[in-house]
Each structure stands twice: as structure tokens, then as C-alpha cells.
């Protein structure tokens, strides 16, 4: 018997590994071109103001300054990534008449070096007329609140309604109803590579932009639109991206301003955002106010749920519309709700726009939902695992009008976590284990970008020595999709990883893919790669068939570079020999094949869903309120694992980021000004704070995914805040519904509790 897979499910070094550990990987951050200039961006100090006048004369006169651009130098196009809906395209990037958040770009300078450009910013005179601002969604939606955009009354940007079943009837039948309010904070992506771009416009009217992005295709399309260039006269190159997490697939100020300046000067211009700019003026996780009302039977059976959410949109739509949709859908995940009603409001505020971040609205939903489920279980005296098991989604379940669940390992995940919890025995005082169940999508379906292309495409060329050139459009920002695609290609074609040469990160040579967001690459780009590889394989097999199969019913396959009869694997030919003959036989043409994938008739949200359960063991110091993470165990169903090394890394990384969301990271503001825009005051988790992590794989087979694979890296951002909150609840009896769960909040709640007990 041959092994089922010869490449898949073996831990493989990231194919970019050597470049990264020797310092040779060249990020856009590192690009230096001859005669390159350096740019800086002037940003609004006001949260809400009219721009009356901008005088750039003095700045232009400074020695070393080559050009200054303002909104007047643009086409004045209001752009947005939700291209399908004009009213959601609301951001100019270089404001012409009004600024709506602190940090909004108003001018940009190109100079011989960064210091000179910085100096020139001080010489630009902007006359503002300050307007009253509004900073929270609950205030901004009130009648009479200052209005940010003319078209948006009461600052309502997007609304979303989801409903199924008879919710009112469900509540009538319920034995127990709970109502809770939650506040979910913001979070910053904190990519280690800040946003940056090098733009080079040449006299033949062609623009090349090296940048750090999650989707070179989106940037190409958006840039060509706002600059008035032909789509394919804009080339976007992004070979390596130093982290993305949702922050790098919209057009950003570095890309736009460097392009504008370069078009004026016909010289390359580089702009790197400082860490402070990154915090103040790039997008961030959407803060949400959540109201949840839930009705259950005495035995814990879920009957009805009603959710209402107000999200702090910030000044522009960006990807926040998607976050509003997804948080509503994932609020009802991963359980069976006979009835559910959701109303979401995204509200404009005079703060930096909020948008996509790993988990995309689902971490907020999961925090609120999982916290409330533990409260309900506690009210009813039911075990947290049991109540979840009773209501868990299962394979074949249909979310009414929304989605069909195919593979689903949720109940196995619950079993594994239950076993682990039992193995821990009795915990010392002030220690608790909290759990949270979660799920996530494997790529989105809704075509809000309005692309005319397939969602993912791949091209393969097999050369005379058997080397395979694989061209993909997906972007590797560290999540490892380059390696995943190489493995899928090698497995399907029947060769090894070393036989593949990958081409990516360049709109000029790569087919279109929508990019790395919404956990779409493994399933969507993976399916496209698999299709292309299968077609290339077919061509090779055709040449071998004559020699190997005297009987027409014999099927052939290639595995580990061996072209063989499936029924008699020992009868075969070397892949390399067959390729040589095939190319000669085709009149010297290399073997070329294409693959593509677009989800058709796969519901409203995604073709497939991952599932999991996480347990967090935490200790709370009752004197200081400090939380220490001891252990974090996750049982996870991502379908067939492609690269075990990659999956483990994704899970651990997501957990660290999600724990940060749960208890250390926040963006406090004063009248729209972020108070901690640096890496000292903004607290990402450090190595010394990481708990032990354990990952238990629950393998299922997802029929929609390549080789049965589905989402693996993003969903795990969903459970941690909730599991952590529940651990604190079980350790102390305190339920904190306001993220992040800081020592101050714990102490405050402890004080309250003591007061209550005295009464």
C-alpha cells in the first residue's frame, strides 16, 4: 500500500524560511531605488474640522524638498473597499475640505531624506475651523449629535438585520431569560512591519508600487481608480509582508501619498509610517457595545436569542461593514438556535476608522456569547461543558437562510477539553478554568469588492527538468500560505516540495486572488492550485498511459515522482522521464494548466467552517487584581491538516493576540486622541507572559476544501477573551463584561462584591 499522502500532513519548513532567518527576505520596508526620495505625511491634529486653507509655499521653499501634495492634487475620488455600494465609498485619503479624525492625512511631502521631509511638515500652514466632535456610537447615534458625513443622518453608516425562527415565541416558552450588556474594546494589529510603500512612476505612465499588503490585487485596483490610471498600468509588488492581521488590504496613506508624489516627480518615493502614526491613523479592531437577551429551557436547551450591537465605526466605512455582518452571524455560532434576531448599527464617530482585524467581529461576538452562556449555566446549575454540548452544531446542520455546516468536529472538541479539565483535578484557590467554544469561516462569499475575476486563480507550468512553476495570487503575510500552496501543488501533482518554484506577490505575473483575509487562502487559493495541478497531472499521465496501461480501464496516478498504475503501483515510470517525453511530444511546449475557484451556491457567508473549544487556566491575585495565564489548551477542527508545523504556529500566535485582547491591550482615547500610541504603553503579550499552550487536533474531512482542509489561523482569535473571562469568573465569582479585563476592573469588581456581601 502506498501512503495516503506523501507531502500533506508532514511538518514542512516554511519555504521562505531560509530567506527570513538569514536576513535576506526583502520587504517593501527594505527597498531602496536609485534617486529615491523620502516622504512624510501631515496629519490632522483635530478630530473634526473644516479645512479652510492650506499654504505649502514655505515648505516647498525648504532646501531638499522636492514636492508637496494636498487634496487639491488628487482627483477627489471618495474611495472604499466596498466598491459595490457607492455610499460606502467615503474616504478621500487626502482630505480636501474636512477632517474627521485625529491623524487624517491632509498633505504629504517628498524630500531628499526623512529628516528634511519631517522638517517641511512643520512649515505647511493649515487653517482649520474646529467643529464639535462625537466619539462614541451611543452618543453619535443620538438626534442632534454632530454629523460627520452629509449623507449619514444620525451618523448611521451601515445597518444589518438577521433573523430566523420565531424569537418572541421562543422567549415565551423559555424558563429562564437573561439580559446582559457588554463592551468590547478596540485593539491594534501591531504588525511589526509598519505600513509603507515605495512608488515609482515613469514617463511611460506606468506606476510600480512595492508595499506591505495582504492583497496586491486590491491595492492595484484601488490605486488605479483613485489615480485615474488604467488598472494594468499599476503594478503592485509585495514579496514579503511583515504581518497583516487584517490591517493591510485596504488602500493606505503610504501607498496613496507615495504614488501621488511620484507621479508629480517621476522619481521613486518611499513612505514608512512611524509606529506612532501606525497607532493613531491606521485602522483597528471595531469596538462594540453589545446587548444580549437570551431564553433557555430549564435543562439548558437554547430557545431564543436577541442581539443588538452598536459599533464604533470611526470616521469612514472601510472594512467595518463586514465586521458588522460577521459579528451578527457569529453571535449565533457554533450552536443551534431555533430562533435568533440580530440588529447591528455601525455608527460614524470622530475617531480613527475601525475595520478588519483577525477574527473580524467574531472575537467580540464570541466574548459576549460565551460569557453569557457561562452565566446562564451558573444560573441553572448546569456544567459549562454540558450546556455547550447540548446545543452544539453538528455536521449537516443548516443555519436557516445563512449557511450549511458540512464537517463539524465540535462535539469531539468538547470531549477532549472535558477530559483535559478533569485531568487537572482540584485547583488551588483563586485559580479557575474557563472555556469557550468557537467557529470561523474559510473565506467569505459576498462579492462586495465587485471583482469580475474568479476569487482565486492559479497557473502551473512544468519545465523540461520536471521543475514546476506555480503562479498564485495569494499573499503570504507570515501565515504560511506560500508553503501551504506549494504542498497542495506537490501532493496533487505527485512531486515533492523541492520540485516547486513559487511565484507570488506581483500583479504583473500572478493571476488574481482576492488576498489573505477572512481565512480564505487554504480553501479558495488551495482549491485553485489543486485544480491546476490536477490538470497538469492529467497531461503528464496521458503521455504515460500508452506505455503503462495496455488495458483501457487501468487508471494512472502520480505520487512522489512515480507515474504508476493505481492497481499495481510497482508498475510505473519516473515522473522526470515522462515529463521530458511529454514536452517533446507536445512540439516543445511546456505543460501549462490553470485552476480557479469561486464559491457558487455555498450559502451567504462561507463554504466551510472551522470549530474548536479552548480552555484557559488562570490565576487571579485578589490583592492586586493581576491575572496570570497558566495554561491554554485548544481542541481544534480545521479539517485535514496540511502543514502541522504551520497550524501549530498559527494557533499559538492567534492565542497570544487574543489573550492580549482579553486582558492587556486597549486603545484608550481622550476626545478622539489615542493616549498610548507606542509599544511601551500599548501592551502586547511578551514571552514572559505566555502560558503553556497545547493544541489537540480533531481531524475531520471538509468536502469543500482541498484534501479536506479548512480555516486554521484566524478562528482561534475568537475564544480566548471569553475563556479568560470565564476563568476569572470561576476563580473569583466575578463576571467582567467590559474588555479588557484589567487588574483595575478586577479590583473594582471585587470591592463591589464585598460591599454586596456585607449587605
Amino acid at each position, binding site marked *: 500500500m502506498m501512503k495516503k499522502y506523501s507531502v500533506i500532513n508532514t511538518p514542512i519548513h516554511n519555504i521562505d524560511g531560509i530567506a527570513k*532567518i538569514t536576513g535576506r527576505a526583502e520587504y517593501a520596508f527594505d527597498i531602496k531605488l536609485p534617486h529615491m526620495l523620502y516622504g512624510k505625511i501631515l496629519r490632522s491634529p483635530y478630530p473634526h474640522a473644516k479645512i479652510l486653507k492650506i499654504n505649502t509655499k514655505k515648505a516647498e521653499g525648504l532646501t531638499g524638498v522636492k514636492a508637496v501634495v494636498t487634496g487639491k492634487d488628487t482627483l477627489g475620488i471618495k474611495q472604499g473597499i466596498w466598491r459595490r455600494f457607492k455610499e460606502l465609498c467615503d474616504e478621500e485619503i487626502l482630505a480636501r475640505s474636512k477632517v474627521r479624525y485625529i491623524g487624517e492625512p491632509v498633505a504629504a511631502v517628498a524630500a531628499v531624506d526623512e529628516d528634511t521631509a519631517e522638517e517641511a511638515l512643520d512649515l505647511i500652514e493649515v487653517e482649520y475651523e474646529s467643529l464639535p466632535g462625537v466619539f462614541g456610537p451611543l452618543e453619535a447615534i443620538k438626534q442632534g449629535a454632530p454629523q460627520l458625513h452629509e449623507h449619514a443622518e444620525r451618523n448611521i453608516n451601515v445597518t444589518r438585520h438577521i433573523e430566523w425562527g420565531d424569537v418572541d415565541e421562543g422567549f415565551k416558552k423559555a424558563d429562564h431569560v437573561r439580559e446582559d450588556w457588554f463592551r468590547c474594546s478596540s485593539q491594534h494589529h501591531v504588525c511589526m512591519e509598519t505600513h509603507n510603500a515605495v512608488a515609482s512612476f515613469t514617463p511611460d505612465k506606468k506606476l510600480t508600487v512595492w508595499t506591505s499588503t495582504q492583497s496586491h490585487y486590491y491595492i492595484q485596483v484601488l490605486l488605479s481608480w483613485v489615480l485615474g490610471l488604467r488598472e494594468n498600468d499599476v503594478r503592485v509588488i509585495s514579496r514579503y509582508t511583515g504581518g497583516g492581521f487584517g490591517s493591510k488590504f485596504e488602500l493606505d496613506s503610504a501607498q496613496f501619498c507615495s504614488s501621488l508624489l511620484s507621479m508629480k516627480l517621476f522619481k521613486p518615493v518611499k513612505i514608512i509610517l512611524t509606529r506612532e502614526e501606525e497607532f493613531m491613523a491606521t485602522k483597528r479592531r471595531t469596538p462594540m457595545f453589545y446587548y444580549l437577551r437570551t431564553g433557555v429551557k430549564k435543562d439548558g436547551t437554547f430557545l431564543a436569542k436577541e442581539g443588538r450591537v452598536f459599533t464604533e465605526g470611526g470616521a469612514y466605512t472601510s472594512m467595518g461593514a463586514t465586521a458588522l455582518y460577521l459579528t451578527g452571524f457569529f453571535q449565533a455560532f457554533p450552536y443551534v438556535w431555533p430562533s435568533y434576531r440580530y440588529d447591528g448599527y455601525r455608527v460614524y464617530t470622530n475617531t480613527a476608522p475601525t475595520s478588519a482585524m483577525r477574527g473580524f467581529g467574531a472575537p467580540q461576538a464570541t466574548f459576549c456569547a460565551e460569557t453569557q452562556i457561562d452565566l446562564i449555566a451558573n444560573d441553572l446549575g448546569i456544567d459549562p461543558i454540558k450546556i455547550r454540548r447540548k446545543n452544539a452544531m453538528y455536521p449537516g446542520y443548516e443555519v436557516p437562510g445563512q449557511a450549511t455546516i458540512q464537517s463539524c468536529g465540535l462535539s469531539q472538541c468538547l470531549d477532549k477539553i472535558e477530559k483535559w479539565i478533569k485531568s487537572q483535578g482540584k485547583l488551588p484557590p483563586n485559580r479557575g478554568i474557563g472555556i469557550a467554544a468557537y467557529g470561523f469561516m474559510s473565506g467569505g462569499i459576498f462579492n462586495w469588492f465587485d471583482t469580475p475575476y474568479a476569487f482565486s486563480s492559479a497557473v502551473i507550468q512544468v519545465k523540461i527538468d520536471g521543475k514546476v512553476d506555480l503562479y498564485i495570487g495569494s499573499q503570504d503575510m507570515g501565515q504560511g500560505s506560500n508553503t501551504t500552496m506549494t504542498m497542495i501543488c506537490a501532493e496533487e501533482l505527485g512531486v515533492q516540495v523541492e520540485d516547486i518554484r513559487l511565484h507570488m506577490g506581483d500583479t504583473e505575473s500572478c493571476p488574481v486572488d482576492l488576498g489573505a483575509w477572512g481565512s480564505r487562502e487554504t480553501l479558495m487559493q488551495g482549491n485553485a492550485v489543486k485544480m491546476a495541478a490536477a490538470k497538469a497531472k492529467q497531461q503528464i499521465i496521458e503521455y504515460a498511459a500508452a506505455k503503462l496501461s495496455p488495458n483501457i480501464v487501468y487508471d494512472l496516478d502520480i505520487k512522489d515522482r512515480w507515474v504508476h498504475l493505481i492497481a499495481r503501483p510497482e508498475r510505473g515510470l519516473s515522473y522526470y522521464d515522462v515529463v521530458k517525453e511529454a514536452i517533446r511530444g507536445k512540439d516543445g511546449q511546456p505543460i501549462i494548466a490553470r485552476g480557479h475557484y469561486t464559491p457558487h451556491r455555498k450559502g451567504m457567508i462561507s463554504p466551510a467552517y472551522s470549530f474548536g473549544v479552548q480552555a484557559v487556566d488562570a490565576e487571579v491575585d485578589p490583592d492586586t487584581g493581576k491575572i496570570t495565564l497558566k495554561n491554554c489548551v485548544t481542541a481544534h477542527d480545521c479539517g485535514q491538516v496540511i502543514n502541522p508545523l504551520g497550524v501549530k504556529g498559527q494557533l499559538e500566535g492567534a492565542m497570544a493576540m487574543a489573550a492580549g485582547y482579553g486582558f492587556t491591550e486597549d486603545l484608550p482615547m481622550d476626545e478622539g486622541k489615542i493616549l498610548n500610541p507606542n509599544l511601551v504603553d500599548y501592551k502586547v503579550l511578551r514571552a514572559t507572559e505566555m502560558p503553556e499552550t497545547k493544541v489537540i487536533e480533531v481531524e475531520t474531512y471538509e468536502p469543500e476544501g482541498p484534501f479536506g482542509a479548512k480555516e486554521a489561523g484566524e478562528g482561534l482569535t475568537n475564544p480566548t477573551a471569553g475563556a479568560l473571562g470565564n476563568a476569572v469568573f470561576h476563580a473569583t465569582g466575578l463576571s467582567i463584561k467590559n474588555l479588557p479585563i484589567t487588574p483595575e476592573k478586577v479590583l473594582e469588581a471585587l470591592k463591589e462584591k464585598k460591599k454586596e456581601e456585607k449587605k
Partner: protein
Amino acid sequence: MEKQLLRITVNNEYHELYVKPKRLLVEVLRDELELTGTKRGCNTGACCACTVLLNGVTVKSCSILAMQADGTEVTTVEGLAEGGKLSPIQRSFLDHGAYQCGFCTSGMLISATALINEKPSPTKKQIKEAIHGNICRCTGYNSIIRAIKAVAEGKYKEEE
């Protein structure tokens, strides 16, 4: 201000160059010597992405002036592999998947190298402390800790 003469040995190569007194070491390494493996994540001494060895000791190259490094020997990530042969720490990072986007990796490798040079068998706690300053937003650190531990346990001894 007038440029000054900087004499510096980087990855065993001696350089003489004229630099402005305000230039940071990281700028000279990246912009003048084109050693872009050393990254910048903050420029304010808070992330350690720019860590290099200065006479064998870790420094944040964004936090010292180039002229302060006059007459010293500097090792950057590009100097870890010799003649195409990866160092034990580098090989272990590969095997343990101790990097994702790779942007913190140079600084991590340097901090890890300094630790192993100084304490060949550190405890887990010492490993965590040695990389406490290095921010990694991708990996959650545990793969990095496992990689360093494996080297400390002698799993990557140089083959003779």
C-alpha cells in the same frame, strides 16, 4: 554638522565611512551598509527588532548613535551563517517554525545567539527573560522558546 569618520567592523568586514554625528547605528547598517536584515519596529527602543551584537553584547541599534559604535565589532543577522552554513540557532528556528512573517526574526536570532553564547544551557525562564524585550506579533513565542531550548539541550551541536 560635519560628518565624522566611523571605523567599524561588521560581520568581520572592516568599514570606514563618514557619517553625520546624529546618525543612528541602525541607519548606518541598513542605509549605508545595505544590511537590511536588521529591522526597525518602533525606533524608540521598545521592540528589539533592531537588535545586533556589539562586541558580543546585544544592543538596540535604534537606540545608539553610529559614532558610539566607532571601533567596535558588530554582528547582524547576516553574520550568523558562515559560508552558507546556518548557525545552530538558525537551524533550530527553521525546524521549530519559530518565525512567521519574519520581521522580528533577526532581532530574535541575535538575542538568542547572545544568550547561548553567554549561558550555553539556560533554563526556560532564562530563555523567556532573554527575549522578553523582543516583540513578536505572529508566533506567540512558544515556538521560539522551544527552538532555543533545543539548542541549549545540544540538539544542534555543530557536526565536526
